[in-house]
Structure formats: C-alpha cells, structure tokens
C-alpha cells in the first residue's frame, strides 16, 4: 500500500482563451511521470483556481496562459494565494510567453516558465527536482 507523499499538481486555465490542448498534454505527461494531476477545465477565474488549490491541497499550480495576459493574471494569483494562506505553493507558467517577460514572472514568484514548445521532459524534470528540495 502506497503511504508516501505523492506530488499533486493543479493545471489551471485562467481567463478567456479556449485552447486547452497544450494544458491537457502537460497534464497527461505529468500523470505518466507519476504525479496526481487535477485539471481545472477552461475559463477559470483566479478565485476559482485558488479555491480548487485549497480544497485539493496541491503542492504545485501550473497556469497555462495563451492570451498575453500572463503578467496581470500571475500577479493576481500570487495576491490571492497569499490572502488564502497558501503562498507556499510552487507556481509555474506555460503557454505563449515571450522571453522578455520571463524575468518579470520570476520576480512575481513564479518558479519556472515553460513556453509552448518546451520539451515535456524538461518540465517534468524541473518539477521533480524542486519537489525533492521541498
């Protein structure tokens, strides 16, 4: 019987964009890498995403954003998770992210940025390495 701590990840789609193939591919890959993955579905508000993260007690939140609004969305997420007392969650961002915005996202508290086209193995390896540290 498995009694160990398993990594639990929320893959969330905030905002308006209606494309979730990428998010689903990442979710599937993380599952195959041995993680428990909750997928939020499309068109989620930040409040809903944070609510799910609280109830599911995930270790990691992955935001998939294709609309270009990644900075305000990420800013709002950090504000809300701190309010809810779960500011310690590991947050990563994927989607359409220009490289010039990466430093700003990291400054906000994002641990990893994986723009579309990043090899899945890289994302997985990254998450596994930080979970070992935590």
């Amino acid at each position, binding site marked *: *019987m498995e*009694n160990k701590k398993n990594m639990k990840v929320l893959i969330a789609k905030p905002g308006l964009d209606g494309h979730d193939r990428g998010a689903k591919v990442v979710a599937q890959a993380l599952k195959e890498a041995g993680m428990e993955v909750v997928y*939020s579905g499309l068109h989620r508000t930040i409040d809903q995403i944070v609510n799910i993260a609280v109830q599911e007690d995930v270790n990691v939140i992955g935001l998939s954003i294709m609309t270009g609004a990644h900075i305000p969305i990420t800013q709002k997420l950090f504000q809300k998770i701190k309010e809810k007392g779960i500011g310690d969650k590991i947050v990563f961002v994927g989607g359409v992210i220009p490289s010039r915005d990466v430093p700003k996202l990291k400054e906000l508290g994002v641990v990893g940025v994986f723009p579309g086209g990043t090899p899945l193995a890289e994302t997985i390896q990254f998450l596994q390495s930080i979970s070992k540290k935590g």
Partner: protein
Amino acid sequence: MELVDKVLRGDEGSAARLISMIEEGRDEGYEAISLLFPYTGKAHVIGVTGAPGAGKSTIVDKLAISFGRQGGKVGIIAVDPTSAKGSGAFLGDRLRMRNAEKLEGVFIRSMAHRGFPGGIAKATLGAAYVLEGLGKDVILIESVGSGQTEIQISMICDSVVTVLTPDYGDEIQLMKAGLLEIGDIVVMNKTDRPGAVEAAKDIEFYLMSHKKQHWQIPVLTVEAIQGKGVEDLIAALKLHRTYTVENSQGSSKKKENIKRLVLAIFKEEFWGETLKKIQDKAMFDDIFQQLQNSTIDPYKAVRMVMDLALPTE
C-alpha cells in the same frame, strides 16, 4: 489538536491538509481522525458507483445542487484510478462538477485510489469524517468506476447509487460484472437515449425476482445533463436513509460493513509492511531466481515467500 479545532470551526484549508495527511498515512493524521470521530456519524454518506462514462460525476453535480437548495451542506469526494503502471493519476471528475463548485459551501476533493480495492482509496472514509467535521451533512462519494462490483464503497456509505445506461448490454453481462450486487438504488441514466425505459423495466423485473432484503431496490430513470429525475433520486435517497436508521436489517448491515472495511484496510497495510520487511532479504531474491529458472513452480514460490514472511518457530 489545533488542526482538528480549525476543521471543526469550518476552516477549509485545514480540512484539505488533514485529508492529505491521511492519504500519506501519517500518524498525526490518524490521531486527528480519532479526535474527530466522536463528531461523526450523523451525515448522510452517499456513494455513486457505475461504469466509466455512465454519468456519475454529472449526477453528483446535480445532487449537490439539489441538496444545497434544500439547505444541505454538501461535501464531495471524487475518487479516480491511479495508473496501473505507476503512481500517477488524472483527477478529472471535478471538471463535470462545475455547477456544484460554484455553490457557496460545497467542498470538493479529488483523490487517487492508490491501488486500494473496491472503488475507493484507503483515505476516503477518513476524508468523509473530515468533511463531516467541517460541517457537511450530505457527503457524496464518487467511486473509481471500474465497471465491476465496487464492494468497498458500500462499506463506507449509508446509501449506494448504482448508475447504469441503456447500453449496459444484457442481464448476463450485468450479472457477470456483479454491478447489481451492491447498490440500494439503481439509476438508469441517459434516458434521452433509445431503449432506456425498457432497460429500466428489465432491471426492475430482475431485482424484484431477486429480492433478498426488506428494502426493495428502486430503479429510477434519470437524464442527468438536464437534471431530470434528480428530485426523485433525492426522495429515494431520503427514504433509504430512514430505512437504514429504523430497520434492524439496515443498521446491522452497517455494523458488519465497518468491520469488513477495517479488515480490508488491515489486509493492505499488512501486505505493505510485510513486503517491506522481507524484500531486502537474500532469500527473497533467491526464491524468485529459482522461479525464473523454473527450478520451482509458482505455488512453491508462494509457500516459500510465506515461510519467509511468517516463519514457524
């Protein structure tokens, strides 16, 4: 314990943490459950089982809304299978519970079954206690949905709903899968599909001729997407609840069930602990070496492993 106090005061974050601790099998988690236990036993714990795609999540969503409208405080535990090849799981039930999720006060927790048999996880019962501690009085548990009999879910629930669809096949298939062996209420879902009413009649006839207890299992027709038939389902659930409380057959079943669940958990834990103790021994490898060289047969290997695990003095 501070965590327990917080749960009892309605703090969702603490409840979520505590459920994780039970999933991880941590001593602190079990101590907290012992403290919560005296506060439990009053909620109506309802299990929803049935094959993949039958409509379990959709029905849970609709039930949560209707119970919520009637003033019920609803908690949901949705169990999904852990991959047979590893520890990963895709927890997707929540996606179909978006209406319930929007309701104030509905707490939804997804959970991977982590290899536990019978449609639930080892931590599912603990999670139900936590949700009751949090103040929920209706707890809906969606099973893994293996398409076969999920015995363990019936051990932790007051009422079990078995969800079928018109394409379930024929009576023989139903019997083979054992789907009608558990379940206090049968739902024929997707009545917008052809053949649903006839299928429901067939099952009703089958159940009437196989009646084993005082409770007559009703067969209800439901179109979950439209919410049709959900009020009748709630009425049937309430009736069944009354039956289990008032009828001695109902309450003695509950006592028997909890004993069976403890034995089921014991079996899993005992197996895990035993394997940990013996798998590093040289003899353990040696047995499998012999098995692979075909110098011993599989049953001989099992007996040798047994001797290793439980040596006779």
